[in-house]
């Protein structure tokens, strides 16, 4: 199996994730896109583990990443909930509390 | 001697820090008295520094500065903490110390209405330290640092203690002042770095003894940057636009220090750095410098003729006078440079006195607008008006008073510029500058006519207007005395600069 196959798959998945994060308005969808990106990374890790033929280091790191993803999604969803409670929606475009206001000078 | 030099530099800084650290409730009088004592000590110290054997090291590398402190400061950059004074800088240091001392003394009785005299005094001391540092720095970076130290306190002085009728105006004036001068000093720093790149050192003494040769390329760029940077401070036309506003809005003591001392930083820098370090490049730009100075003389005088505010008028007169100094430097001749140095001192004394007087008039009428003040000050405030007339006559360059010798030597220098400069051009400058002195006389006479003279019946005296008070007499007397003394005995300073 050529190494580029998993690598290219990872690239495609990652860029789909990037598109989702940048383009979708719903914050939960954005989180889902993050998961896609993390998966692409995992794919890379496992593929390189196979390539380097060493003792499952890449797999271990993949496990770690999955754990991190779990933590991340937990926190992310909590924030989404908070956002929903505060604003009544989960629209990233409408959540502009960081906007610089003109009269703020 | 080194101890004294270090002391007059550090003492005001420490004193200012001490003043800030004690509680604000110590009272204005006490703060002013404290400031007077400190600045009086500095004055004594600066007089002690007066070189016994005058030597102008800038033109004779074999003559080292009279007093020198030289320790490494930032070794990796080759920056040294190199201080030293010679006969060029000591008179300016004494002038600085004198004016600060008089300002502190003046604050004993007369302070801006905003109050907070304690901070004002402390800032004045910081300014004094910065100016003395600039005048004694012998390292380009140290010069730049001290040059910058002066700006911020002066900005605060204008911004906080400025004209209490016009908060927006004084803020704008202060900001314009600080932004333009910082812009200028940024250019100057670039120039310094170019010099360092070419010469490999930042030490002014070394640079003076082996100057950067060549009037083109990098030396020219360095000279241009340094000249423009210093010209903002001078200020040379057309970079003078910050000056009238800053002066008009600043409190009396601020105006006095600004005109008397801060403007000299620019011309001193030109004489100390530009001329000796980059002689060839300076010769290339000298005709342009002379041209702009001449325009400054005429434009400043013309602008004065149309002013309706006494402080603005005096501020614009500074533009004209500093134009004379710039012209003197641009001639690169012994007479012109000595004229510039002399005019530096004379302008500090006379314009300081003029701003004190303008401040006194402003305080008494709560405005500096000529039309609102009215006329016939001779009848209402006879002594102040007489002093104003005296100061005006001194400022317009009446022979026998200090203002004359500087202008005369500058014109003499323009008549006989350095041999490598185009003589015809400088002759034209001389004639125009000479006519500028007539314009100078015209606006000062207009001021006297519109302010001092007039029908007393139409301008009844204000109820609270008190003539010359004792503190005013005490603070102004040294300036008047020195103006007359230097006028009748110019050798007092000229001899310091030795023979070439």
């Amino acid at each position, binding site marked *: *199996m*050529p*190494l*580029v*196959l*998993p*690598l*290219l*798959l990872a*690239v*495609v*998945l990652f*860029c*789909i994730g*990037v*598109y*989702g994060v*940048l*383009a*979708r308005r*719903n914050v*939960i*969808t954005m989180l*889902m896109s993050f*998961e*896609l990106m993390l*998966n692409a990374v*995992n*794919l890379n890790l*496992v593929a390189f*583990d*196979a*390539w380097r*033929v060493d*003792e*499952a280091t890449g*797999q*271990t790191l*993949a*496990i*770690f990443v*999955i*754990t*991190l*993803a*779990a*933590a*991340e*999604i*937990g*926190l992310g*969803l*909590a*924030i*989404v*909930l908070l956002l*929903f*409670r505060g604003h009544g929606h*989960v629209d*990233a475009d409408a959540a502009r509390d960081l906007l610089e206001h003109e009269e703020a000078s | 001697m080194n101890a004294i030099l270090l002391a007059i530099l550090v003492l005001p800084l420490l004193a200012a820090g001490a003043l800030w650290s004690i509680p604000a409730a110590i009272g204005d009088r006490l703060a002013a008295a404290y400031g007077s004592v400190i600045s009086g000590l500095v004055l004594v110290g600066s007089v002690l520094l007066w070189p016994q054997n005058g030597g102008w090291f800038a033109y004779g590398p074999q003559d080292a500065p009279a007093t020198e402190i030289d320790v490494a400061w930032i070794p990796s950059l080759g920056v040294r903490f190199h201080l030293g004074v010679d006969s060029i800088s000591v008179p300016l240091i004494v002038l600085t110390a004198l004016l600060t001392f008089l300002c502190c003394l003046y604050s004993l009785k007369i302070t801006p209405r905003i109050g907070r005299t304690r901070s004002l005094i402390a800032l004045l001391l910081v300014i004094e330290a910065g100016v003395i540092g600039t005048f004694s720095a012998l390292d380009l970076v140290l010069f730049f640092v001290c040059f910058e130290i002066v700006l911020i306190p002066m900005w605060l002085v204008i911004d906080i203690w400025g004209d209490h009728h016009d908060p927006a105006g004084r803020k704008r004036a202060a900001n314009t002042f600080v932004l333009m001068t910082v812009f200028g000093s940024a250019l100057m720093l670039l120039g310094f770095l170019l010099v360092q790149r070419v010469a490999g050192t930042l030490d002014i003494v070394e640079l003076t003894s082996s100057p950067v040769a060549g009037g083109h390329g990098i030396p020219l760029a360095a000279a241009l940057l340094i000249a423009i940077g210093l010209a903002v401070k001078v200020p040379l036309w057309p970079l003078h636009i910050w000056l009238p506003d800053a002066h008009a809005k600043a409190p009396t003591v601020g105006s006095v220090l600004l005109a008397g001392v801060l403007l000299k930083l620019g011309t001193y820098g030109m004489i100390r750095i530009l001329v000796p370090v980059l002689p060839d490049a300076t010769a290339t730009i000298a005709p342009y410098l002379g041209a702009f100075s001449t325009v400054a003389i005429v434009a400043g005088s013309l602008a004065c003729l149309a002013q309706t505010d006494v402080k603005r008028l005096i501020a614009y007169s500074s533009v004209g006078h500093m134009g004379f100094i710039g012209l003197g430097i641009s001639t690169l001749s012994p007479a012109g440079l000595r004229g510039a140095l002399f005019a530096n001192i004379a302008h500090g004394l006379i314009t300081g006195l003029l701003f004190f007087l303008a401040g006194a008039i402003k305080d008494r009428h709560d405005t500096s607008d000529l039309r609102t003040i009215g006329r016939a000050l001779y009848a209402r405030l006879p002594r102040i008006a007489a002093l104003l007339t005296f100061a005006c006559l001194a400022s317009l360059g009446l022979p026998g008073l200090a203002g004359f010798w500087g202008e005369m030597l500058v014109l003499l220098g323009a008549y006989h510029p350095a041999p490598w400069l185009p003589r015809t051009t400088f002759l034209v400058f001389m004639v125009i500058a000479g006519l500028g002195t007539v314009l100078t006389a015209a606006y000062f006479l207009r001021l006297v006519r519109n302010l001092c003279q007039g029908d007393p019946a139409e301008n009844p005296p204000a109820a609270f207007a008190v003539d010359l008070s004792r503190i005013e007499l005490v603070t102004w007397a040294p300036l008047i005395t020195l103006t007359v003394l230097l006028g009748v005995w110019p050798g007092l300073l000229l001899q310091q600069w030795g023979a070439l």
Partner: protein
Amino acid sequence: MTTALFSVAGAVAVVAAVVVVVSRRIVHAALWLVLALGAVAGCFGALHAEFVALVQILVYVGAIVVLVLFALMLTKAPTNPLPEITSGRAPFAAAVAAVLALILGAGVVLAFGNEKIKPVTDGSATAVGTQVFKNWVLPFEVLSVLLLAALIGAIALSQRTESAQRKKED
């Protein structure tokens, strides 16, 4: 064999991922995510990393997607198609993603174009466990603390504070 298996799983994963990011129904997107993650797990399997594949299914499909679905419910997400699921910068985002894909793809091909791999030598839980407890003990422990912190953080964030409640009541 593994190549074919990997290709099929990869194709499924890509298609599912594309549907996730373009789907108009958010719940559908979440379900398509299940497929995409499952397909990635299949890829892991094709590479003989069984343990990772299992964890992928367990954690991702089992825990994360369920969490996401709960979140969708809690935020009252509409189940019907939305007219505007993407913002105005979608084409721009697509362009950015495409350029990124091009660069990364080109880089990958240029760097590893000729390399061949065999499936991982040992993808069992034993191998991974040995690694974790032999070489990665400290990161593992730190990770556990991190998880704990995330847990506490999630609770703290999602809890209605008294002051916020009072504000709402006012």
